[in-house]
Each structure stands twice: as structure tokens, then as C-alpha cells.
């Protein structure tokens, strides 16, 4: 991995020959200014989408999930697609903050904070869908194993749906804690810069951080340990999500390749989402010196690498369906590619396998516009991957008389839009009120000799 992403050259990580103070100013000034018109515009769009989503959710809870396009054959469709999509988006944040920390990839410092925030928001979005799908979300606590008056009737520990509860719950908690611990030094900076009520708030949340050497030593150890825990966690989460399907006896779902295939797909889509957001954020927030072409290029390489693995996973599935000699398996995949839902398979292959391959070309990899377009297409493709897996496997089951088709209703589309609204609303609030870049970490990767030009010139004078 080290070779893959420019070997030495830490000097190019942060452009503009910044001093420590300059980094602080660049990161914290946006929080202390009034919001720009472009922020308000984006926030307006995001919160409108959120409002549409809220209306849809309230309506479907009031009326019931008969407002969805499901029937007896297709019992899972849009909501589970969205759930898997959002969980997957979250995975890149953990990968950047934990795996790249363990691999000592210094380029992660500029993007880890916002990628982790993205993880948390994406998991919130994901969690909403199973909650709504319960039909009676106010009884959600039934999924927890608590002593109850029904016996106690305990939960079924052998069900992957219960594993999901624990996996997503742990993932959300650990991501939130990891993110918060990472924020502490920067919250202290915000506290030391602020006055009045802002100082009180940042003072409360920075827990009395002083930057003493003893605390730094423990802090770094804690971050390393959390990273070491988060790395297998992130692999486990999407593996568990994949068992929702893989443990079912349904052709198209019942495959052992699912756990690694889902994990790599999650990293693929997550990196695409991080990159799309970073490309917008660096422009809107003026962070071009921190999120440089080097970061963008490194993320492009991860995308083309994981995209290729995803492509080979599709090929493996198709090959195994043919090679198994199982007529039901063969039918499921034949139907997936050439059946009435074949168009969605086409979109999936085009967006996930073919389009990312363009990133092999340096000319495309250095054009912001084409990268942005590719990352959007990858996200579209990865959404369709889940749709293909779920709907195309379900809609023509073992009994031709029960074959059916699926079309989302406006309520379902409104909920999907609402989840994007929620995600972007939370992300925009984060950009506005918290330091988007881990300033203390960026300071530690600045080239030491140029870190303090004032001190250098003083030395010469002396």
C-alpha cells in the first residue's frame, strides 16, 4: 500500500508551506465566521429533502407498510436496499480512520475527521430503514434481550437479523466514541479561541484537555487500540449484513462469497462517497491546500482497486451459478442478467465495473470533474447492486404462479430522498460547527523544518 500511494514525499501532503498557526486559522476560521450563502443554499436543499422524508415516514407509520410496493413474493425491496447501501457508505470512514492509521498512511489526516463523521451519519440513515420496516417502530426495543413478561421469551440468537442489531449497534457506538476521542484536541483548540457561550460549550465537551505529554501518550495508545478494534469490526459489520441474505435458502442469495464481496463493495461505495463529498467540501470550504491532488489520487486508486475486486466478485457469482449445475441457481442468474429486471444488472455492471476502470488513466485521474462524475456513478451503481441482489432474486421464485414484479411507490422514493436529506443536513451542520479537518493530526505531519518559519528566521538572526 505504501508503494501504491506515493512513497516518501510527505512534503506534498499539505500544500502552501503552512505554519502551525496557519493550520489552526484555516481549520477554525470557517467555524467562527457567518455561514456563506452557498452553505445556506445547500442546507435549504438538504433540509427540504429531510422534510419530505419525514412526511413520508410519518405517513407510512400511520397508514402501515402497505404503502410500499411490496407483495407476497417480494417482501424485501427498497428499504433493505437503502439499509445496505447506507451501511456500506459508512465503511470508508472507518477504513480511513482505523485501517490507514494502523498502516501509518499519513495522507489520511486531512480526510479522516469528515470521513468518520460520514460513517456516523450514514449509520444513522441506515438504522432508520429496519426501524420503519418493523411496522410498529415504537416496539423496537423488542429486539433487545431483556427480561420480559412473555416468559421471558428471549431473542433468537441464531438469526442474522439479530446479529445485525448487535453489529450495527456496536459499529455506531464505537465509531461515535472513536470520532469523539479524535475530536478532543481540536475541541480544546476551539475552546481556547472562543469567547462567551461558545467557550463554555467547547469547554464542556473538550473535557479539560490541556495537551500535556502524559495525556498525549495515553491518547495515542487509545487511538491505536480503537483502530485495532475498529478494523475487524468494520469487516464483521458488512459480513453480518451479508448473512441476512447468505443464510437464506434462496438462489442468488445463498452463496459463501457474500461476506467478502459485501465488505469490499462497502469500501468501494464508501470511498466513492467520501471522494464526492471531499471534492465539494474542498471547493466550498476552501480547503484545497489540505485535500490535495495527492489525497484525491490515492482515493481514486483505492476505488479502482476495490472496483476491480467487485467486478471479479460478479464474475465469480455468475461462474459459480453456471458451474454448480443447479438449475435453480442457473435460472436465478439467467433471470438476473436477461430477465425483466436485467436493466438494473446492466446499470450495476456499467457503473461499478466499467466506469471505475477509467481511473487507470492519469488524465482522467487528474481531472476533478471526471472524478466527481465517476464517484457519483459508482454510488448509483452500488445502490443498484443491492437492488439487483434483493429484488431480482426474489421476484421470480420457485413457483411461477407467484412470480411478480416490483416498482417503488412515491412513499418509498420520498423516504430514500429523506435519508439523503438527513445525511446531508447532518454533514452540513458538522461542517459548520465542528472542525472538519483534524488540525492536531495535520500539524503532526507538516514537514518539521518548515513548520515554524518564524523560528527558523530567528535562529538565523541569532
Amino acid at each position: 500500500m505504501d508503494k501504491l500511494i506515493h512513497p516518501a514525499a510527505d512534503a506534498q501532503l499539505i500544500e502552501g508551506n503552512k505554519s502551525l498557526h496557519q493550520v489552526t486559522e484555516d481549520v477554525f476560521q470557517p467555524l467562527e465566521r457567518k455561514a456563506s450563502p452557498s452553505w445556506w443554499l445547500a442546507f435549504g436543499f438538504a433540509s427540504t429533502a429531510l422534510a419530505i422524508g419525514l412526511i413520508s415516514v410519518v405517513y407510512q407509520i400511520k397508514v402501515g407498510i402497505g404503502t410500499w410496493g411490496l407483495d407476497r413474493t417480494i417482501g424485501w425491496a427498497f428499504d433493505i436496499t437503502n439499509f445496505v447501501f447506507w451501511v456500506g457508505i459508512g465503511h470508508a470512514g472507518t477504513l480511513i480512520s482505523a485501517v490507514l492509521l494502523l498502516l501509518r498512511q499519513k495522507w489520511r489526516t486531512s480526510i479522516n475527521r469528515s470521513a468518520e463523521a460520514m460513517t456516523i451519519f450514514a449509520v444513522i440513515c441506515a438504522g432508520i430503514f429496519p426501524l420503519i420496516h418493523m411496522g410498529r417502530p415504537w416496539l423496537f426495543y423488542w429486539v433487545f434481550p431483556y427480561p420480559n413478561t412473555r416468559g421471558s421469551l428471549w431473542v433468537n440468537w441464531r438469526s442474522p437479523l439479530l446479529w445485525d442489531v448487535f453489529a450495527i449497534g456496536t459499529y455506531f457506538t464505537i465509531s461515535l466514541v472513536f470520532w469523539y476521542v479524535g475530536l478532543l484536541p481540536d475541541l480544546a483548540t476551539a475552546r481556547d479561541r472562543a469567547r462567551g457561550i461558545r467557550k463554555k460549550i467547547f469547554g464542556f465537551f473538550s473535557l479539560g484537555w490541556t495537551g500535556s505529554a502524559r495525556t498525549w501518550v495515553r491518547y495515542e495508545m487509545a487511538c491505536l487500540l480503537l483502530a485495532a478494534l475498529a478494523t475487524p469490526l468494520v469487516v464483521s459489520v458488512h459480513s453480518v449484513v451479508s448473512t441476512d441474505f447468505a443464510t437464506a435458502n434462496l438462489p442468488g442469495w445463498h452463496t459463501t462469497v457474500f461476506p467478502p464481496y459485501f465488505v469490499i463493495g462497502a469500501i468501494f461505495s464508501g470511498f466513492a462517497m467520501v471522494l464526492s463529498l471531499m471534492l465539494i467540501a474542498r471547493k466550498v470550504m476552501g480547503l484545497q491546500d489540505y485535500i490535495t491532488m495527492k489525497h484525491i489520487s490515492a482515493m481514486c486508486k483505492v476505488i479502482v482497486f476495490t472496483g476491480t475486486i467487485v467486478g471479479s466478485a460478479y464474475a465469480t457469482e455468475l461462474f459459480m451459478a453456471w458451474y454448480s449445475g443447479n438449475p435453480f441457481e442457473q435460472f436465478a442468474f439467467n433471470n438476473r442478467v436477461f430477465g425483466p429486471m436485467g436493466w438494473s444488472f446492466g446499470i450495476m455492471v456499467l457503473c461499478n465495473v466499467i466506469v471505475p476502470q477509467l481511473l487507470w488513466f492519469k488524465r482522467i485521474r487528474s481531472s476533478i470533474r471526471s472524478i466527481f462524475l465517476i464517484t457519483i456513478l459508482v454510488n448509483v451503481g452500488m445502490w443498484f447492486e443491492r437492488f439487483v441482489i434483493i429484488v431480482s432474486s426474489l421476484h421470480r421464485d420457485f413457483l411461477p404462479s407467484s412470480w411478480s414484479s416490483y416498482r417503488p411507490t412515491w412513499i418509498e422514493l420520498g423516504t430514500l430522498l429523506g435519508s439523503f436529506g438527513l445525511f446531508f443536513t447532518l454533514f452540513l451542520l458538522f461542517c459548520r460547527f465542528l472542525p472538519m479537518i483534524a488540525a492536531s493530526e495535520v500539524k503532526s505531519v507538516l514537514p518539521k523544518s518548515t513548520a515554524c518559519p518564524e523560528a527558523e528566521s530567528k535562529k538565523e538572526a541569532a
Partner: protein
Amino acid sequence: MSSRFHYAKFESEQDFLQAARSCRSHNLKVVEAYSPYPVHEIGEILGISRSKLPFVTLAGGTFGLGLAMFFQYWTSAVDWPINVGGKPFDSLPAFMPVAFEMLVLCAGLGTVAALFWRSRLYPGKNRKVPHPRISDDRFLLMVEVQDASLPPGFVEGLWQQHHAVEAWTRAGEVQ
């Protein structure tokens, strides 16, 4: 016995580190150091030993794993055994995913709780920050000197030699 605390503020990591090194070579006791980002060598100069947090992580993980395995076994095989798809009541491999998640959860929360406990970080804590720009771009060294063990002006000279931008002292009691 009274002693004096000498503080010096630096603008660069190099000056800060060199000053700390030369304090050590003159057998001065560096009691605390503050920096805007972790400086690795300084822990060694202060004589801070390797953090013992990994043991907390291990303990938390073991607790989470044990608790989850025991609880799943007890609920499915002892308290109310239910036949699910003809699987054995004590199907331990099927309990692994939840046990693993509980391992990670307890280990992670335990580690962070230990970090906060040991570093005395808690919400609303009103700790006096030695200098408001430490969290921005300044480095601070704090040296303890027992009375009359050094020629006057010795520490100040040392600070000057290493380009300290500001230096001050404070009397203190030895604890």
C-alpha cells in the same frame, strides 16, 4: 522543602525537544510538557512509561466475550430452550457474531473509559490551561528545580540558548 517551577514557551518542536534534551543532560527534572500535537520523544524524556491501556482493552474484550457467550448459552439452552430449525440448543458457532460484537463494544468502551479516568478528563472539567496557545502552535516545558541546587540564572540561560520565546517561574511546594 520549597522548589521553583520554571516554564518556557517555544515556537518550534525542534527547539522544544532540544531544550528538553539539554534539561535532561543537566539533570534537571522535566515535570510536564505541553504540545499542540503528540511529540514522541518527549514522553521518553519525561520518563513516561508505555501506557498500560492495552491491558484494559484485553480485560474489556474478555469480559464482553465471556458475558455474551454465557448469556446466549444460558438463554437458549438453559432458561428457555426453543427448537429453531432443529439446531442444537447450544449452537455455539452461531453465537459467535454477537459475542464478537460484544467483545469489541466492551473493549472499546473500556479503553476510552480508562483513558478518561487516568487522564482525568470529564465533561465540564474546568482545568486551568497553562497557555491558551498550546492548543494552537506553542510548546511548553515545565522544569522543577530544588532550591539552591543551581547557580542563579542557569535555567534562564538554558531557555535562551534554545530560543524560548517566553519564560517565567512559579514557586511551588514539593508534593
